């Protein structure tokens, strides 16, 4: 379904983007990669995962991983507000949620308005997470590359964080079993 939407856009000379706020910045994701936008609901935390993995939610019976985008980009955490939303994105067949401060609007831009990402964007955000920069009147929108947010390498990185960061005793070592005589 999402792919179809993508195809239609290519025919026209316009790209539709869902824009959202994170701190002082405005980001956007290609509409084709957005499955839906939901309000914050009870998120079940999953221990021993990278800290930006907030947990899982029940999205109509489907267990969906939710990541905190502020933590993902090493921004300061803030109190969640009524404005906070979870954007459910799709990469391939994999679905995941992203907590953002607020969703602002769906914008239509011409592909010409999208410039390649500069080397240094902000202190926190690596340019590899970006597809490009959209220059709008009075606003600069960073177009996110969803694939890299949860790419294989990223996940491998996350795994390492989860494995070594926990300081756990519960490593899969030999079982200890002492019998007393």
């Amino acid at each position, binding site marked *: 379904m999402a792919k179809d939407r993508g195809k239609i856009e290519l025919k026209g000379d316009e790209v539709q983007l869902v824009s959202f706020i994170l701190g002082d910045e405005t980001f956007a994701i290609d509409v084709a990669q957005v499955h839906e936008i939901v309000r914050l609901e009870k998120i*079940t935390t999953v221990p021993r995962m990278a800290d930006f993995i907030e947990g899982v939610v029940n999205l109509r019976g489907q267990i969906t991983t939710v990541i905190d985008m502020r933590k993902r980009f090493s921004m300061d955490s803030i109190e969640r507000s009524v404005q906070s939303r979870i954007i459910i994105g799709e990469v391939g067949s994999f679905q995941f949620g992203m907590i953002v401060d607020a969703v602002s609007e769906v914008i239509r831009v011409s592909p010409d308005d999208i410039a390649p990402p500069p080397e240094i964007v902000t202190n926190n955000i690596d340019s590899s997470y970006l597809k490009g920069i959209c220059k709008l009147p009075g606003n600069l929108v960073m177009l996110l590359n969803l694939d890299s947010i949860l790419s294989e390498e990223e996940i491998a990185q996350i795994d390492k964080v989860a494995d070594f960061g926990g300081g756990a005793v*519960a490593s899969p070592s030999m*079982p200890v079993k002492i019998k007393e005589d």
Partner: protein
Amino acid sequence: MNISKYNESFIGEANEQLTEMNKLLLILEKDHKNIDALNDFFRVIHTLKGTSAILGHMEIQNVSHLMEDLLDKLRSKEIDFNQENIDILFEGVDTLETMIDNVAKEKKQIHGKELISKLNASLISEAEKTADKESNTADEILDLKDIIFMLKPEEKKTLGAEIKKGSNTSLITIIIDEKCKLVEGRAHQIFRDLKEFGSIIRSVPDKEEIGILEGSRSFQIIFSTSKNEEEIEDVIYQTPEVNNIISEPIDSLSNQKVEENNRSKTISAGETIRVNVQLLDALLNLVGENMINNIQINQIASQHKNKNLDVALKASNRLTEDLQHYVLQMRMVPIDHIFRLFPRMVRDMAKDGDKEINLVLEGGDIEMDRGLLDEIGDSLVHLLRNAIDHGIEPSDARMKAGKEKAGTIRLSAHRDQSYIVIDISDDGKGIDVDRLTKAAIEKGNVSEKDAEAMNVDERLSLMFLPGVTTAKEITDISGRGVGLDVVYSKINSLGGTVNIKTDVGKGTKMTIKLPPTMAIIKALLINIGDETYALPLENVAETVLINHEMVHTVGKRDMFKLRDEILPLFDLNNEFIGASTRDDSGLSAVIVEKDSTRVGLIVNDFIGQQEIVVKTVGGELRRSKYFSGATILGDGSVAMIIDVGAFT
């Protein structure tokens, strides 16, 4: 009659019969004197012949018919049992398989002419030895009962009507002289002449098929007429080269007998039915949804404290449980469904590769979900092919290495808790890890630097990357470097794992571990911090309250004594949140067990037992060794299912 409706069950049955025949042939190949196997084979092919005839699959009928002839002669020792005969029979089974596949795919049917002439040759050459020219015929003359059994319903109806009308109905067997060059031409003449005096209800074989079989000189017709037997025979003898005519009148009595036979068959056929797997899937999903719904209703009811409601709900719960039990039961099939296909496959591949291989199958009775079994079939074939092609060495190489001449491949299934584990091990040459690593570097799958940093297991897992192969030669079945990566991603997508262990010169063992698709399990719900977690009940040995004094620290580990056993103790608060649960009243611990290792887990609270629907988790969560999945609780929130294996 809508034939296509019956074809579906015919195909299903026929495929089972093919598998059975392959199995029996393998037995016969090893033991030519096994009369039981021979009799079983005969019975199976006879059934196939019958059903294919009913549905009008004449090609299948012809081939099975000839195979039956051959078997009959083998059974009566008219023909010696030799490898040649076995090979022809194998070929016959293959041809039948193609034909049945053609029926399934509604493709144009083959005649299997090559096979038919081979089968005929095997029959004829023996016949010549006995110098009995009269039996030099490819076609069996069926008796009346068989032919009536083969009739299509509308033909049966016509026949019944004709008998009722008082017509002379008879089965006429016409044998054409063996010098005749064009049997079908003579048949055409006879058919044409007879039509003037009555109606041909059925001919065997069909008119178009007469003469197609090499050496076939006879055909049979069911004819109804107002003339008498002699008059009709005269008509037939007008056609040249007719050697003999046998007429057998059909009266109502024999017809009735057949009807009775058919009736008793229908009754026994009602014990099992074939159901589309998709329907079973849908049913299972519905049961799952229903259970979640039930949990919700129960929670609401617990707030109302209405006794009648509780009683009614209890009954409803029990019914749902039963329903779930039966639905799961319906989906379970023994793993043998796939295993039994392998002996034949391995035999053929071993023969092609000039290798001797013993295939040992173990645990075929382990039952698993039908859907899952279908999913893993191809992967097992891949792994077996790898073992045959790259694992087992040719006989001479094995002798040189001081091994048994014949290699052994062991395919074994067993259960580990709810997991299903399938091992495929061979006693072949093992995997050369260095060569594998080199191949992966050459392919660009891994950099030299990264490869150096890898341990043996990590290097072995390079095998699962696309395009990596150590095979020097590409054979038709494997070596192209596709396969293992497909296996790996397939098993992964099912939530399972693949492991390799190899010992150069001694062999390789691949282990597939599959999660239960038992979508519904019993679990103990516990609290840790603010969250609810589920522990699969099959891992829970008991729950205990322990005092602080019972806990001792050995090295970095907490241990405690349960009766005469010292168990490691993990505080899940500490493990999951980094906070400790040490209050004075004592500690709630769950003793869990996996692979016969027991540990204690300290939790905040026990909530209770409940049936939960296991949901898979996506992507990176699946990599977590602490959780095997998640479930949705009655209030709609998610609870992670703890994988006890992380602690044992």
